[in-house]
């Protein structure tokens, strides 16, 4: 163990520079979030992940955000175990009928102000499961969505970009607003 620890001290870090949030996501957020809400949203965000019928592919890539290459926590973003500690629900899957109530109750248990991010093609609109008797067809069919991150599954860097849009400093957002208004 000592060897591994020493080596980690002298080896260059694996962690990569952050990706810039994408214009598309910033625009979506600017539209979704009120000014007051954005001011209250600090630099530090607690995220509660909810699998609402995903194939688990999105979870694998969300997990990857915690590895040394992406190191999500350096941005003040961290995953929490309870919705009561969360600012953001990160939801995956087409929302199965069997998970709908659990998702709604998780949302109700999250204190205000709160945001909802739908990650993955299934969460966006049901993806390839849309039309099934067993799914609602996307998170927006059940709850108000603030941000969507498409992909099957989205790559970790795409998820990171989307989440960074949530904590981008206000000036950048003002610029975005100016550009889009």
């Amino acid at each position: 163990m000592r060897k591994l620890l020493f080596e980690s001290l002298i080896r260059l870090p694996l962690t990569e520079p952050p990706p810039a949030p994408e214009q598309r996501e910033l625009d979506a957020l600017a539209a979704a979030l009120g000014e007051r809400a954005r001011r209250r949203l600090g630099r530090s965000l607690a995220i509660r992940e909810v699998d609402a019928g995903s194939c688990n592919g999105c979870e694998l890539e969300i997990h990857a955000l915690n590895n040394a290459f992406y190191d999500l926590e350096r941005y003040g973003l961290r995953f929490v175990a309870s919705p009561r500690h969360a600012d953001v629900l990160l939801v995956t899957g087409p929302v199965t009928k069997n998970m709908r109530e659990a998702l709604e109750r998780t949302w109700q248990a999250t204190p205000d102000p709160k945001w909802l991010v739908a990650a993955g093609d299934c969460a966006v609109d049901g993806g390839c499961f849309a039309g099934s008797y067993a799914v609602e067809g996307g998170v927006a069919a059940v709850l108000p969505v603030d941000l969507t991150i498409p992909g099957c599954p989205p790559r970790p860097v795409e998820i990171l970009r989307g989440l960074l849009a949530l904590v981008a400093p206000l000036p950048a957002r003002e610029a975005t607003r100016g550009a889009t208004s």
Partner: protein
Amino acid sequence: MPALIDLLLEGRRVAAHGGWPRVRVEPAIWRFAAEQLGTGHWTLLGLWGEAGERLAVHLALLDETQPGAAVVSLDCPDGRFPSVGQYHAPALRLERALHELTGLEPEGLPDRRPWLDHGRWDRRFPLGAPGPAREEAPYAFLQAEGEQLHQIAVGPVHAGIIEPGQFRFTAAGETVVRLEERLGYVHRGVESLMAGTDLARAAQLAGRVSGDSTVACALAFAQAAEAALGLEVPPRARRLRVLMAELERLANHLGDIGAVCNDAAFALLHSHCGVLRERVLRAADGAFGHRLLRDRIVPGGVAADLGADGRAALAALVAEVRRRFPRLVTLFDETPSLRDRTVGTGIVAPALARRFGAGGFVGRASGRGFDARRLPGQTLYEGLAFEVPVLETGDVDARVWIRIREVEQSLALIEQILAALPDGPLAARIEPAGEAREGVSLVEGFRGDLLAWLRLDAEGRVVRCHLRDPSWFQWPLLEAAIEGNIVADFPLCNKSFNCSYAGHDL
């Protein structure tokens, strides 16, 4: 003890069925097969029904003494069939699900509680003659009686980035007396969505059944379709399929080894294994254009070729894992506080693993060495050398060691393929057969053997497809493994099983 081959002589062989034989039998023979399963002859590979134009139930069986597999079918024009679960417990959940999806009635089934249908769908029997929706009712968990027992309800939303499902623990102080699972929360209706679609759409769905096994699921589906149509997959495509399957095994095992250590509060190994897993996904992305290799295996062959850059990336990956992994294994082996948590925890008795036909690291850690890659008639790994590690202790530790050994085997397989990759086309042309065809296949995913069965119509559309995830026969063993362990060791046991919710719930 009768051989499976003798049973087949009792039935009428179905002509247009590829892969292994399928025979139609009389109810007495069906019942006999179920009884034989119950006495430990043969292994249950799958049990599913169809209630479209014809009403029938199908039982996939494996003979491990004279290796071979077959499908036994019973026509049930009145919609009833003798329950297999009444003789053989591993069939219970399969039969509950079969009933809810098709409406077919397993006569004598001892457990009538709903399994996948939680009373929230807009209809009943989605694969059969749909009826009005089932009424929602509280789930009757099995009771445990005794002094000072308390219950702990967990889920369906868990305290981590994991899939949903419900666990009900009954504990005496710290000790678990009973665990019961309730699944079905991620049921998406995959088999209904597949019915009536073309092969391309059904293959896309198969690849989205279980995200961590997207290669294995797509491969099982593709091989079943190829068996049905009598297609010969070109040599280069066959080797690339093995390459993808072993990359998937490598990535998942590395992730699991780290995650088990993390659940024993040893974060260092988790971090290092996480780095290696990420390197596998990046190499897969560089080689085939997708980190999880989704949609890269299609009926007929593969959808992505391996170029010189990809080859170099994979060679560099193998070298990197070979350099780093042995030191992590040493660290695992030589950290007493970690081994203290894994050794003797969550034991699955070999007899139980055999009875349930548990595959993958769950079976192999408990003395069951079955590996679908070695099943006679499975030619995908022909010409490639690999060993199947088997241990007897059946604890969390053994399930980690099986993964460690399989990482080494997967590395060796990847090297063998890179050293001699044949040239040639990537896929065979698919032509509709002009008649109804059926096919079956069994694929060794990282968790264990995955069954796919399908029937195609004359135009090549999917009439019925059934996919059976290895977790069906592993989830019940988790309930047995945790008994007598402390509640705090459940995450450790659970992670060492790493059963799929999505693959099971379909």
